[in-house]
């Protein structure tokens, strides 16, 4: 039982990172009907920005600001940087292809993804960058926390999961309770009709990219607080994030959250009860199972195409 709780906790932590990445995919897919392959690399850039800010503020061992402020600043910087990056990518790589055949932006997205990961490698090399979060105020993030059935739950886990959920709630509020959110939903439902009703599609798309990329930036920091980050990390994480979005039902926000956590838990249980080497196989099987039995995902709606 203890082992199970431990694994569930791991799954929940990894899953909340996947969920944040999946949300970005889902948002962008919903509005633009584009599979943004570069999203995983935006996530990677976010983790690098976080690392840079962390080092600029004195590193994990002796930061110049209190730990809570440090974490907030690092996350905010990564979110802001990624938001800018997302807007730039949209402006220069996707917008010129708005009316091109559907395969064109996909290939452009592949190019962006490739460009970003290799640029990072050119700039900073292929080595790993460690936040060394265990050094933050003498390991407080790991020693503190509370015990559940003799399983120690470190503070860092609680912060990660908690802030991921907080971000999701904020996102849900933005999408469902604001004017811009309404415009987003309208655009996602039918772009042409939305444009005819006076919604500025370009603005909505830029806003979506800001939201999605900022979430990816936050996810990047949460990821890198646990394990070291490196230039090629975006590809795999992006893939997992997209799988989570498909499982949850692409275009659905609660779906992305549930899908991400499901995926994280599946991986964690595979690693715990079987082997780490084959966790990809399990994830792939889940993806295939969904494709066969429920292609619209858990929360997706069935698309009816009119001729």
């Amino acid at each position, binding site marked *: 039982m203890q082992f199970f709780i431990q694994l569930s906790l791991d799954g929940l932590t990894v899953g909340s990172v996947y969920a944040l990445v999946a949300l970005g995919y889902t948002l962008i897919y919903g509005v633009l009907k584009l599979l943004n392959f570069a999203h995983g690399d935006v996530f990677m850039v976010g983790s690098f920005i976080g690392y840079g800010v962390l080092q600029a503020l004195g590193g994990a061992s002796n930061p110049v600001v209190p730990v809570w402020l440090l974490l907030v600043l690092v996350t905010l910087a990564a979110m802001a940087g990624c938001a800018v990056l997302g807007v730039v990518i949209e402006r*220069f790589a996707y917008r010129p292809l708005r009316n*091109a055949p559907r*395969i064109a932006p*996909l290939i452009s997205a592949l190019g962006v993804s490739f460009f970003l990961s290799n640029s990072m490698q*050119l700039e900073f090399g292929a080595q790993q960058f460690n936040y060394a979060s265990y050094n933050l105020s003498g390991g407080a993030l790991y020693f503190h926390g509370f015990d559940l059935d003799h399983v120690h739950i470190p503070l860092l886990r609680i912060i990660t999961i908690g802030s991921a959920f907080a971000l999701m709630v904020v996102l849900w509020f933005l999408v469902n309770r604001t004017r811009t959110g309404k415009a987003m939903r309208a655009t996602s439902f039918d772009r042409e009709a939305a444009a005819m009703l006076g919604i500025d599609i370009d603005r909505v798309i830029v806003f979506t990219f800001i939201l999605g990329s900022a979430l990816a930036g936050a996810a990047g920091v949460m990821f890198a607080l646990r394990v070291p980050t490196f230039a090629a990390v975006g590809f795999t994480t992006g893939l997992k994030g997209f799988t989570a979005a*498909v499982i949850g039902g692409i275009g659905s926000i609660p779906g992305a959250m549930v899908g991400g956590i499901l995926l994280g838990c599946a991986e964690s249980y595979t690693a715990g009860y079987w082997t780490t080497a084959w966790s*990809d196989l399990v994830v792939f099987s889940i*993806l295939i199972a969904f494709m*066969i039995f429920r292609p619209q995902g858990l929360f997706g709606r069935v698309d009816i195409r009119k001729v």
Partner: protein
Amino acid sequence: MSEWLPHESESPEEAVPTSGPAVGQDEWVAREGERRASRAGWVGTVEARLRRVPWWAWLTLFVAAGSAMPLFESSGYVRLVGFNTVVYMMLALGLNLVVGWGGLLDLGYIAFFGIGSYVYAIFDSAKFGYHVPSILIVPAAVIVGALVGLLVGLPSRRLSGDYLAIVTLFFLELFETVATNGNQIFGHDITGGSFGISTVFPLSFAGHTLAVQHNGIFAVSYYYVAIVMFVIVYVALFFVNNSRTGRAWRSLREDPLASEVMGMPVNWLKLMSFATGAGVAALAGTISTALNASVYPLNFSPVVLITIYAMVILGGAGSQPGVVIGAFLVSVLLQVLQDPGQARVLFYLVIVVGVIAAYRVSVRLALVAASTAVFGIATHAIAASFHHSWVDGAHGGLAGVIANWVVVPEQLTPWVGQVSYLLLLVGMLCSTQLRGRLRLVALPPTLYLAAFVWENQMIPNPGPARYIVLGLLLIVLMIVRPNGLLGERRVEIN
């Protein structure tokens, strides 16, 4: 018969006016050539002449030129590059089938290349003690590749672009995982794990083994085997493309819904295109493995996938000669980028041609050129006045030409390189947005920055630099010329 009758009208069939369409042929289709705008002047004439040369003549010419290469090049390295280029061409042809004709975004394509390689390696290596003759194992590998392709495509029943893309991309990832961890499948070693299989036998035909090396250098026979395979693939695909199935694929690409309404078995056609492409990739894998005598999981990373995509997109998806030329160009490009001197030549060539193409021969061109030169010389002079080690780093081809222009320190401080790369990106993005005079002002510093970054960052790091160039190539091509060099422009009708 009287002599004044035209000779042609003797037989009744030929009396039918030749300009009209034949029976059963659509007039709009038949007159397609007449609507094609041709260029004026001698360029148009040459173009029209060249267009009339039949495809097999081009192919023969191309293959003859390729086959003659070893006569002039005795370097084993260059011949090996030639071999790899032919393998790339085969891969590009297979991907063209899926992406260019079928219109399906197959991101697991390289996995099928890997499957072909591994099937060959497992059943024809000392590691496991099998030695199946090539005449059996090569077709078997192709069939296995195609069947796995079918299996992978099957679950994504709807096979709409995005779902197929993600399933296949995941499949590629999975393939790498299986290959890397294949040495512990329930206690059995199947793929050799991350160390791969390194004792693969060369190709053997009817008891004769085709040695991989001849007198210590690359055996040119493999180059010719690859060319023969390439020709077979090319011709076979050419006829497939002109068959009923090929036409069905293209109609599917243009409009799946319309094709379905016309009664085409859409899903089956998609699967077929997918599986055939996988088979071609597997074929390329067998010969490549036979030559390298080894196979490693890392040979099949997404990096190779992007390379093949760049080839297909550059050449023009959908056009067979196009993707072959694209494969050739990208393969040469990757080689050139590894050599500092050649990379330098290429860079300045591209810059000069690009600026001339943008401004033509005009006053503004002279302005840009002059101000870039002056800007560079001034910067160089300032840098040199601080310390000579700031400008002493340039070596290799063309170093004399740029010696007084680009600042190349012996040892570049890392943050300078990082900041200048970032600035270059900003400058490039800005100069695409600016117009008129502003662009004229922004261009010289950007060009100079590009030269600086190229000399100090890209040339010392050919690994990432090559792929940055490929990534940029994909993005820019998609925006500027999505039909590539030889592809036909596709018009999306909504």
